[in-house]
């Protein structure tokens, strides 16, 4: 466990290295991948990526919440949230890699 955080720049670098596109194209394409996924989800459609996982939308009912600091009751409106369900392949790879 190295405790690193990867960003878009690291993904672009990997694309540059693995696919051999220009650095500019690599960075643009990484952004396009994320944009297209985000646009699809914002349009209410699920995104399923085999052997990685699926991003789906879930409708949450409204409920009464509580401000944990003041104890005050505050209504929480019904809302739509994004959930990521990792595939079995991804879960297995991570669990096996980190098991000791």
């Amino acid at each position, binding site marked *: 466990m190295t405790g690193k955080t990867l960003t878009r720049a690291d993904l672009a670098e990997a694309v540059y290295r693995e696919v051999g596109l220009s650095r500019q194209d690599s960075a643009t394409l990484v952004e396009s991948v994320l944009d297209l996924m985000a646009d699809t989800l914002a349009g209410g459609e699920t995104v399923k990526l085999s052997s990685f996982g699926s991003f789906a939308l879930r409708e949450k009912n409204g409920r009464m919440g509580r401000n944990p600091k003041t104890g005050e009751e505050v209504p929480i409106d019904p809302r739509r949230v*994004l959930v990521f369900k*990792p595939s079995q392949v991804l879960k297995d790879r991570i669990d096996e890699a980190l098991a000791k």
Partner: protein
Amino acid sequence: MIKSELIAKLAEANPHLFQRDVERVVNTVLEEITQALENGDRVELRGFGAFSVRNRPPRLGRNPRTGESVEVKEKHVPFFKTGKELRERVDGKK
């Protein structure tokens, strides 16, 4: 939308690239995220979300059929937290 549709759409928007290369871009992005998580690292994509690994400590479970106690080993599971911008977009408030 499934992966092949994502690739097809991206290829359409990037006519100067081979579809084969677009496919490799998508697979490289997913593979890079997976490898980072295998190393226990985080992947933070501002506006989109962050992938991390959560640790589930070992616990004593129970076989629901027999009621027998079983030891459940420690587990590492991938976790995604939606970024602020995307969270607001899917909720349609923005």
